[in-house]
């Protein structure tokens, strides 16, 4: 019986190199049937290990398209591996396709593929070795699929390069926190590098988890000899470095590329050795795929993605304008937030559908860990599922039924949970009572297997105008709750509700709360006074060592510079709106437009200033005196100006129409389409941007819904022109009346006509002009 985490366990070694040595060519997984005896002999040569790995690395429905069924290959592979006489772990490698947003495979498709892997293996194998993953998101889909569709133990490893990151940018700490959160039985690293080069990564992994750590290094760094990959590290050196890893506290060892039975034979001497225990300090951690945040000291949680009291965000949520949310997220990130709160709680919205959609969109652009903020447990679960990392869940309270709904979700996805120190009777008056509720929450979490370090408590801010004497109770409660060994949070700005000069009260209260043990103020990071108070606190309490961060932020500070900090990058200025657009100075466009509007009618500003400037820029561009970056800068400045003008337009005034844009199905190049978008928007058109890789039916659906004046389709390569043609046909079949524009590197007027489009334009500017021309004819 293997004693995981107590005694050292040895896995077998490289399979590919053995296949090569035996001269076996072809799809490795098919060799389980076509060369069963040879495969068995390799397994036998590894019988010195404790666990055999089935020859199933590429066996998933996305990667394997051969003539055998996945099921028969799986069965033969496990049967062959049993020749070793050892328990057999089913080898699960990456799908071979790249997940969204870089690739086109969806999280759900990846899940389905790995679910199929679980179904063909769960009754025949003894466990899973999930290995060589470099994308955390794909690994999450895999682990969820295996856990939900089998009960076998899962060992999961990722590959890191010498910079200490996976190919998609995850660090060992991020991998460890996510995998532990998802409930694997062992985690670690395989392939990547040789054992010596892996030492620093292994050390980081061991320090980042209390789970058993597994390491399967390559046989050193490969060298190229006559174009062939050769591994040259000696078995002695391999063993020596493996021993160093065991000294660090590694539990499971094995080999990857280039290792042979000789290497495994040598390290099998460690089998059964006592696993060295190492100190592990649990910490409160949340992470995205690229950044990890320890809730310690003070961490700012950005509150601006919560629609309460925010009209523009409400409208964006109702109109499904996720671009607006991305902009808000990116601005908060740039302003210094550490975590972002995401809330889609509006009566008009089905949170269960919308929240995960928002999460998927935000994580494409924003590196910060996210806080899933909803009282709808189903929405929280749907969002936690698609979140690429370990989220913070906001929130539970002391009510049993709320905790019974949320804690299973937090346990399953490894989330940190924010508990509100209140129950069905409301917010208790005293700090003592609030702390008692916190204790109840911590105890209930423990029943679900959620440790204390995955709980945070919000001791709840009351408004000073209504309950002045209770403000102090909130602060006292912070101190008491911290003694329970959990981190704390507060929605700071509630304190000033109903009082004049709210910023003053907010930042004073924030300073008091930080001093009493507040770890995570939920606040507006764009408020320079509030983030400033946090930075000052960090300096004054020694969190910001040598004041480095503070000095970096405020080195150029003068009292009057504070308001203009955001535009400091723009050292140029323009005297008039015309110059501003012509020079592409977006930062000044809004203010100069407001000034123009003081003396002119909105339509005059459009026709006499904006259109004129754009036309002049266009002429310069066409004559080769201005170039793409400048054209785009001007377009962006004009777009900003149009947004200001449109607020001054009478509601019923005639506007230019809508244009639906899409990069066609199968094509993932959207740079050209993005340029078209900004340029035609600058000419006053409203753009519905469907993104890239858009199937014909989605274009048809959008055209039906928005009834645009025109549709613009983009394709970059010859292989996607048929897809463009299919889209045009689908639109025609649906009776689309809009003008269909096509463009892209391989298009020309002839092709455009051949595939049934109305117009071909060679670049963004020509499209803007052609649109205007057609609109005038109309």
């Amino acid at each position, binding site marked *: 019986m293997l004693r995981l985490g107590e005694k050292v366990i040895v896995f077998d070694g490289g399979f590919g190199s053995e296949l090569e040595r035996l001269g076996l060519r072809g799809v490795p997984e098919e060799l389980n049937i076509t060369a069963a005896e040879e495969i068995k002999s390799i397994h036998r040569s590894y019988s010195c290990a404790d666990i055999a790995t089935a020859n199933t690395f590429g066996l998933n429905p996305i990667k394997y398209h051969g003539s055998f069924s996945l099921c028969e290959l799986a069965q033969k592979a496990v049967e062959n591996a049993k020749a070793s006489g050892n328990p057999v772990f089913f080898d699960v490698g*990456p799908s*071979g*396709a*790249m997940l969204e*947003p*870089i*690739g*086109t495979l969806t999280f759900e498709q990846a899940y389905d593929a790995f679910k199929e892997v679980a179904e063909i293996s769960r009754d025949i194998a003894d466990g899973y070795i999930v290995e*060589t993953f*470099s994308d955390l998101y794909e690994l999450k889909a895999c682990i969820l699929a295996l856990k939900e569709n089998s009960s076998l133990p899962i060992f999961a490893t990722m*590959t890191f*390069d010498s*910079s200490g*990151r996976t*190919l*998609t*940018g995850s660090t060992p700490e991020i991998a460890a926190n996510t995998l532990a959160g998802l409930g694997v039985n062992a985690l670690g690293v395989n*392939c990547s590098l040789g054992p010596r080069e892996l030492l620093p990564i292994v050390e980081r992994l061991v320090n980042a988890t209390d789970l058993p750590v597994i390491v399967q290094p390559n046989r050193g760094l490969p060298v*190229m000899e*006559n*174009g*062939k*990959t050769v591994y040259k590290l000696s078995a002695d050196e391999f063993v020596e470095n493996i021993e160093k890893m065991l000294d660090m506290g590694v539990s499971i060892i094995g080999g990857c590329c280039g290792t042979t039975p000789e290497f495994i034979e040598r390290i099998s001497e460690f089998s059964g050795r006592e696993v060295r225990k190492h100190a592990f300090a649990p910490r409160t951690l949340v992470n995205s795929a690229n950044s990890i945040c320890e809730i310690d000291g003070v961490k700012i949680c950005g509150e601006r993605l919560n629609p309460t009291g925010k009209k523009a965000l409400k409208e964006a949520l109702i109109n499904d304008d996720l*671009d607006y949310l*991305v*902009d808000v997220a*990116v601005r908060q990130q740039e302003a210094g937030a550490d975590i972002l709160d995401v809330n889609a709680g509006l009566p008009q919205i089905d949170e269960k559908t919308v929240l995960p959609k928002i999460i998927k969109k935000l994580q*494409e*652009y924003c590196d910060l860990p996210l806080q899933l903020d909803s009282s709808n447990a189903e929405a929280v679960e749907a969002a936690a599922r698609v979140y690429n990392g370990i989220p913070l869940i906001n929130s539970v309270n002391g009510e049993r039924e709320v905790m019974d709904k949320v804690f299973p979700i937090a346990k399953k996805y490894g989330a940190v949970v924010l508990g509100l120190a209140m129950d069905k009777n409301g917010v208790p008056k005293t700090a003592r009572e609030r702390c008692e509720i916190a204790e109840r929450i911590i105890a209930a979490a423990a029943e679900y297997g959620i440790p204390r370090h995955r709980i945070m408590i919000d001791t709840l801010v009351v408004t000073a105008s209504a309950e002045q004497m209770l403000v102090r109770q909130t602060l006292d409660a912070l101190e008491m709750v911290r003694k329970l060994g959990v981190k704390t949070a507060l929605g700071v700005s509630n304190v000033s509700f109903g009082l004049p000069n709210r910023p003053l009260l907010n930042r004073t209260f924030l300073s008091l709360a930080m001093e009493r043990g507040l770890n995570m103020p939920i606040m507006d990071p764009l408020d320079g006074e509030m983030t400033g108070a946090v930075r000052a606190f960090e300096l004054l309490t020694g969190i910001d060592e040598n004041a480095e961060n503070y000095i970096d932020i405020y080195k150029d500070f003068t009292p009057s510079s504070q308001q203009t900090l955001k535009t400091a990058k723009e050292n140029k200025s323009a005297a008039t709106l015309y110059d501003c657009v012509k020079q*592409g100075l977006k930062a000044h466009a809004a203010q100069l437009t407001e000034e123009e509007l003081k003396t002119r009618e909105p339509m005059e500003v459009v026709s006499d200033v904006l259109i004129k400037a754009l036309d002049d820029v266009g002429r310069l561009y066409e004559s*080769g*005196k*201005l*170039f*793409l*970056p*400048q054209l*785009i*800068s001007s*377009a*962006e400045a004009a777009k900003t100006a149009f947004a200001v003008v449109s607020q001054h337009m009478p509601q019923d005034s005639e506007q230019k129409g809508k244009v639906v844009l899409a990069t066609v199905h*199968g*094509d*993932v*190049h959207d*740079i050209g389409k*993005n*340029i078209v978008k*900004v340029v035609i928007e600058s000419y006053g058109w409203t753009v519905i941007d469907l993104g890239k890789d858009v199937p014909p039916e989605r274009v048809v659906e959008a055209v039906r819904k928005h009834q645009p004046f025109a549709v613009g389709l983009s394709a970059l*390569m*010859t*292989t*996607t022109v048929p*897809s463009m043609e299919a889209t045009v046909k689908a639109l025609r079949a649906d009776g689309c009346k809009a003008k269909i524009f096509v463009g892209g590197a391989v298009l*020309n007027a002839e092709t455009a006509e051949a595939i049934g489009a109305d117009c071909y334009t060679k670049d963004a500017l020509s499209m803007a002009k052609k649109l205007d021309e057609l609109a005038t004819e109309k």
Partner: protein
Amino acid sequence: MNFSETVDTAALRPQIYNYLGFHGVGQSEQTDVLIDECIRELEKTARFRYLYKSFDSPPEFLNKEPYTEFLRGASGVIISAMTLGVEVDRRSKLLFRTDMPRAVVFDACASAYLEHLSDEYEKTIGDDLSFRFCPGYGGSSVKDLKYIFDILRPEKIGMALNSSDFMLPSKSMAGIIAVGKKTVKSCKNCIMYGSCSYIKEGSTCYGSVKR
């Protein structure tokens, strides 16, 4: 890898201007600065990976035109794949959201940077290599990329081929290199010959000669 991933921006600039559509005119100080900044950013963001295998005789999929012509007289062939990694795509995507002009320049810089690093890397493989001939160009089918992926399995350097035969991440390339035969990239067999905007403007694309 014994070559540097830090580059002399000035050397790359003409090519970057070319990609931006400047075609040899209209260089500006403002754009120069932007190019410099983007290259420095790429040096931090990019994770250049190069994978190759060499063969004494060409793998089967190369036994057809235009490859046979390209490889005639070569003593061997190298199949290669290379990428700047997904973080460049991520960065580019964010820039398109926050700073469009910079995004456009960043994209052009990334293309030139990948070409440059690949050229430099190939110098460490040998000094008698041709340019990289990529399926999809010169009258060859982009579908042949599939064979290159089967041979190299560049998934391990983070590359993938989607259903329309696009390589991912977007700053990725694949190449067929003739060994022992100095060949020059030329326009005459290019798929874009006849409609190429570079030629119309009097220049050529990366490293090509007009023949």
